């Protein structure tokens, strides 16, 4: 059995706004494995992003524990979390989040300049099929292209885990497939553990593992015996 990359025990997250309390996560116990392509599914507001953010060291839990390998994320201070994000994690967001004043290459360089053993920005962009757009500013790229730059930026440091929050959410089906293919290829070629949040149930067929979130907890975990290719996904 593959070794665990992440596991959590009773992760709880409560947001307080004024005197209203929102229980985003209610005691989640989850496991994610090395090299796997995992899909997080769930209704809007069910707590997917919250879980992913805690795993990525972007947010803290109200209670419970989370580990990356044998390191306890929930015990880390801000400085260690920064270190952790810098060394181990790649993020892809729904709205790309590119720096508008930097070109595609420079957006990737933002990461390669601070990473330990990065690939070159050119190579990263090559992997997502964007060699031809290397000196374009974000405003000069289509949505799908921007998202692929974001993926290139996320993988350029050869992260152990790639966390993607609705990477295809803002894209049409054709470009969405292109983005998924890029992610799938990286997962296969580099063995990067990949977690994707999506609302698109069709994507579950290409995952090793599908985790269903409902109302702040894990409702179901399915392990696929066979996976389909990204290009075969019905949108």
């Amino acid at each position, binding site marked *: 059995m593959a070794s665990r990359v992440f596991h959590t025990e009773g992760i709880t997250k409560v947001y307080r706004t004024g005197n209203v309390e929102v229980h985003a996560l209610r005691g989640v116990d989850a496991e994610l494995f090395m090299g796997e392509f995992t899909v997080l599914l769930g209704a809007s507001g069910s707590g997917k992003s919250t879980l992913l*953010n805690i795993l990525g060291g972007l947010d803290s839990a109200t209670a419970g524990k989370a580990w990356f390998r044998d390191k306890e994320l929930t015990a880390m201070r801000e400085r260690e979390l*920064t270190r952790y994000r810098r060394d181990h994690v790649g993020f892809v*967001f729904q709205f790309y989040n590119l*720096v508008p*004043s930097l070109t595609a290459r420079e957006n990737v360089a933002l990461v390669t*300049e601070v*990473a330990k053993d990065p690939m070159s920005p050119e190579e990263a962009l090559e992997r997502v099929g964007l060699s031809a757009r290397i000196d374009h500013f974000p405003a000069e790229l289509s949505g799908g292209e921007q998202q692929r730059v974001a993926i290139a930026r996320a993988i350029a440091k050869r992260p152990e885990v790639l966390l993607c929050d609705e990477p295809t959410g803002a894209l049409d089906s054709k470009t969405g497939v292109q983005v998924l293919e890029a992610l799938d290829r990286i997962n296969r070629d580099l063995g990067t553990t990949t977690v994707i949040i999506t609302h698109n149930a069709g994507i579950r067929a290409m995952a090793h593992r599908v985790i269903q979130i409902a109302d702040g907890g894990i409702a179901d975990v399915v392990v696929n015996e066979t996976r389909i290719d990204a290009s075969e996904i019905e949108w």
Partner: protein
Amino acid sequence: MRALDKKLVRDIRRLWAQSLAIAAVLAVGVMIMVMAFGTQRSLTETRDTYYERSRMADIWSGAQRAPKSLLPEIAAIEGVARVEARISQFAILDIPGMDDPAMGQLLSVPAGGVPEMNVPVLREGRFPEMGKENEVMLALAFAEAHGFGPGDSFAITLNGQKREVVVTGVALSPEFIYTIGPGSIMPDDQRFGVMWMAEDVLAAAFNLSGAFNSITLGVTRGTDLAPVKDALENILKPYGGTGPYDREQQVSNAFIQGELDQLDVMARVVPPIFLVVSAFLVNMVLGRLITLEREQIGLLKALGYGDAEIVWHYLKLSLGIGAIGVLIGWGAGYVLSSVMANIYVEYFKFPYLVFMQRPSVYAIGAAAGLFSAMLGALLSVRRIARLSPAVAMSPPAPTRFRRGIFDRLITFFRPRQPTMMILRSIGRWPVRAALTSFGISLSAAIIVAGLFMFDSFDELIDIAFVQANRQDAILDFAIPRPESVLDDIENLPGVMVAEGALTMPARLYHEHYSRTIAVEGYREGNRLVRVFDGNERVDVKPEHGIVLAERLADHLQVRTGDMIEVEFLQVDDTRHKVIVTGTVSQFFGLSAYMDNDNLAALTGRAPQMLMANVVIDEAFEKELYQAIKDAPAISGITLLSQVRRGFDETIKESAGITLTVYTFLAALIAIGVVYNSARIQLSERARELASLRILGFTRGEVSYILLGELFILTIVAIPLGLWIGYGMAAAMIESFKSDLYALPLIVTDKTYWRAALVVAGASLASALIVRRRIDRMDLVSVMKTRE
């Protein structure tokens, strides 16, 4: 270059107009610092070197006639390193081609050929030689004013004997770097000049052989001057000593010191205003940038950049702006310093002007500039650390508007919706609105503080030369005369009224305070010179007591009704108890007034006069001048009409420049604040405004919503600024107060209006620039961009 640095450069380029507006405000702060500190240091150094090299005296005293045999005793006073006795006299001059008489202060050159102290620096020719009755050496200012050089000649009346003298040389003196005649307040090099003649010649003319009437002392470094002055005073008392004074009261030095103090005040007061405003602007612009880029900041954090790296990135932006400001400030400061140097060369007669551009001054300017940029930045980048990456990545919640008291208040008035939006926006960010208003108000304050001086001068002239002094001229006598001499004066052609004035050097005591001044005699019925209170505009009679100038009363810590003691320096040691019967606000000198008869009773001497005040019939001016040039008893003349004219001219000259400079400075602040605020508002509310445009609002209506807020803030800022300006003016008046003069605190409506109009104009101009942006706003692209 690193990717983040590329972002930095592109950010600065994108924000160039705002960055430049901030940099310009900052530059002014740095410029004035560089200029004022640099000039102040150069001037101080020049003066100190000059004093050192020419052995400038530390203590001076006059006497009526003191024997030279006193010198060993004076030299033996503890701490005295050098003594020089000399003859100092005033004389009427008859200059070819000049109708009105000029006045000269004659100083003796000792037998050695060159004075040992206050050594004149020869510019041309040579010193006058012993025994040469017709040789005179001129001070440069006077020589230049008349185009005199060696070989030229004019007439001089020495103790009633008119003689033709020939110029042997031209020199500068450390005692007369700034030269003003007695009774004057402005240099008039045409009518008053310093000159030197051989000691034996002057001694013969003034009957002072083997004697002196002026003495200068040099002390060893670190000597306490007070005991030396006391000892000197005691020695000279039997010989009509006029009371020793030191450099603080020496006129030329006091004026230079006044100039240095002004530069100091300028360097300390003005730059901070500009630096604070620029810090505020940096804070505002950077704060907005961080709000705009919160997702990018969140992203950088998600990518593993630490807080420190991200904070440093934004600090570099402000440092960039700071650096641009410092560079501009350095350049402008450099130029301004040399302009100032030229002005000083014109006003002050130094043999050389040590005008170095000091690296330390530039370093201080740079440090202050960068510090304020950093300060402004630090207050806004604090937010970066608090921004959690997960929150930063999600779009900000719509700004929460609350129904507070302020809101209820504005809804009560039921304004139209656009006005409602303006008022809500102010109520939502009250601190920002207050700071913006404060920033704009400083612009108005600077104008008031910069220009009120002219109002004060106007008042001063009115009081000193119209209300209090109504004579056309003051005639000085070489030696004290009895009152009967007034008949002779009135017999001079053209003299319509003549009144005598008597002064007696005296020391006033109260508790442990004391002050050496000249008590002026007051004669009931005199019309020409009034003991006049500037504030109340009333005459004050000394009656049986003494009336003090307010600043003198402050020095002595006395009020009307208190008793003080008066010792007449030329009479004896007796301290007479005298009651203070009143105080008057006066702007020149430290005066005290007593009734003539009362003075005579106290001192046991009949009132005698040193000066006569006269009213002249203009039709006989020429005849009068001729008569005065030939009159043996008159050693000097001050024409008040000339003093007034000189003063007016000097003020008019500088008024234009000052007005331009301060208008420029104030406009810079107003534009910097208003333009940046408007740009930030535009960036924050672009979507809202674009939506309104799509809903069918006109450009004018939309601009009103955006600029209306700034309009309101400016309206609030103006009275606030006028008030702050008044406070600054009052503080300046207080800090410029000296023994020589004080200025009345007057700010006229004209100045207030000027300040208000400049600020309103500058605000309007910046609003219009931003208005053009609103007009050209591309609705589609604004709506498409996500915030």
